[in-house]
């Protein structure tokens, strides 16, 4: 087959992209933590400045630098996103494997729970869980973490059911390997790639829902520099023409989410045997 040497192969370019994306996201997270002090600094001599004269992203009505606030908010969002996506994915893994291996009754119960959680409109469920935990940081984390597992759990359940009929698993069973050993030594290594990509593809949802719920007033409190808080405050200043309060923080959030989404998609293509040679 003719092969163009100049063209890098997909695996290499994906790994490069992966490294770059992780680096950017890590840099944003770190910068946000460092800038958290600057983000809350008020300076009433320079309020409501448009971008340009008032720094990169302008300043708000309290003279806070919007660039610092955006970075701090983004950093907080990314940290919450990682935490909640990880918790969600672990719940999904446990629920999915349990449904597929612990017999019909467990399967019925877990499938019922999945249907239940998927039946309540997502944002309402996050709101409800957040209220149950008293809103604030704990509310938002619990709400997002406890509501994102069903779809991934369903995927894992299907995969494990298929896997159980695989010859090598059947052989292991016949050889007297215990159920637990079988799950740990044969199933989890097979599931890991799918699980990891599912985990990364959960980030965008988690971050978006965190911002949405905070925007509605059920999440982080207004002192925290969260993107949802910034945007909900900016709503009051829209009619007076202060567009930069809403535009840049939102844009930054979109970019971060896209980065995560593309990262997950690339990883999925690379790990999925059916598309790895595309």
């Amino acid at each position: 087959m003719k092969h163009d040497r100049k063209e890098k192969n997909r695996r290499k370019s994906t790994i490069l992209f992966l490294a770059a994306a992780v680096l950017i996201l890590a840099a944003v997270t770190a910068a946000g933590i460092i800038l958290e002090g600057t983000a809350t600094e008020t300076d009433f001599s320079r309020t409501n400045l448009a971008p340009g004269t008032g720094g990169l992203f302008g300043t708000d009505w309290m003279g806070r630098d919007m660039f610092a606030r955006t970075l701090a908010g983004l950093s907080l969002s990314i940290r919450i996103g990682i935490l909640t996506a990880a918790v969600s994915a672990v719940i999904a893994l446990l629920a999915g494997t349990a449904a597929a291996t612990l017999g019909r009754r467990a399967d019925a119960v877990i499938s019922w729970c999945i249907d239940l959680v998927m039946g309540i409109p997502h944002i309402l469920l996050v709101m409800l869980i957040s209220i149950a935990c008293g809103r604030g940081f704990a509310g938002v984390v619990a709400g997002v973490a406890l509501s994102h597992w069903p779809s991934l759990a369903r995927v894992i359940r299907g995969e494990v059911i298929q896997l159980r009929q695989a010859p090598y698993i059947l052989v292991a069973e016949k050889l007297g390997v215990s159920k637990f050993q079988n799950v740990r030594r044969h199933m989890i290594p097979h599931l890991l790639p799918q699980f990891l990509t599912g985990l990364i593809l959960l980030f965008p949802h988690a971050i978006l829902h965190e911002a949405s719920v905070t925007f509605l007033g059920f999440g982080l409190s207004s002192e925290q520099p969260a993107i949802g808080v910034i945007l909900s405050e900016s709503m009051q200043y829209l009619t007076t023409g202060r567009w930069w309060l809403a535009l840049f923080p939102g844009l930054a959030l979109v970019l971060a989410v896209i980065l995560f989404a593309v990262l997950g998609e690339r990883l999925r293509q690379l790990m999925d045997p059916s598309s790895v040679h595309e």
Partner: protein
Amino acid sequence: MKHRLQFAGKKLIRMALLLLGVSIVTFLLMCASPLDPLQTNVGQVALGSMSPEQVARLEAYWGVDTPPVQRYLGWLGGVLHGDMGTSLLYRQPVLTVIGQRLANSVFLLLAVWVFSGILGLVLGVAAGAFRGKWPDRLIRGYCLLISSTPTFWLAILLLLIFSVWLGWFPIGLSVPAGVAADAVTFVDRIRHAVLPALTLSITGVANIALHTREKMIDVLESDYVLFARARGESETSVILRHGLRNVSLPAITLQFASVSEIIGGSVLVEQVFSYPGLGQVAVTAGLGSDLPLLLGITVITSAIVFAGNLIADLLYGAADPRIRRGAARE
């Protein structure tokens, strides 16, 4: 036919059980909340200046001292008689509040549902048919961008562009200032619904288009399409006769599954545009710890979602004879 009825009956029982589960979960979550409804609605200062009797009466009104199980059973008994209790914030029966708001939202939601479904299907089929070429790249890029965009930010952007800069649409309030609520004309209502509907449609398309594209690619790689091409059928005929037909099945499921997403999006969008629909009242009820109202909203929206799934299941059988026979054999 008998089997079909049995199938539908089983699904209905499952749906009723799920709704019961939804109400219990919602109730438990609201009860577990450490937020004191008196503190949030009456305020610390006002509470401090009240006599103990007044506080006790308020506590009885908000149901603070009644045990949860008793409250839930009381609520459930009421629901079976068609009474969902009284909203604590609006001081009206929950069903009246929800009915009013739902009437406002239904128009918006239906328009979005139909529009995003059709556009999503068309875009998905187009992307699948042009796989790897520029229309596909364009549509996929659009879907990626939109699914990474928070709905409420998009709403803010549209508000900024069309209402503040261009002044084409009103900024909020579905009742214009200085006009009585019942004097609002139909045209006014539509003018206020355009931007929310546009926002929800823009976001609703992405998911449907991406899934339809996947299905379309699967279909176009199947043996029967290969055979059709070998017979010399034109590409348009292949797409219309084989692609669209086979994609229409998953499209039905997607269309009905998107109900949940649209309702969720409407919560955010109605908040931004201060559109007096069900979503806005859900946020108000949540912030004010209005248990009966929030419980009612959750149960009714979940019922809509489950009904959507049920219709999809039934339509699936109606559209595909193989599934019909499979369901009958079970």
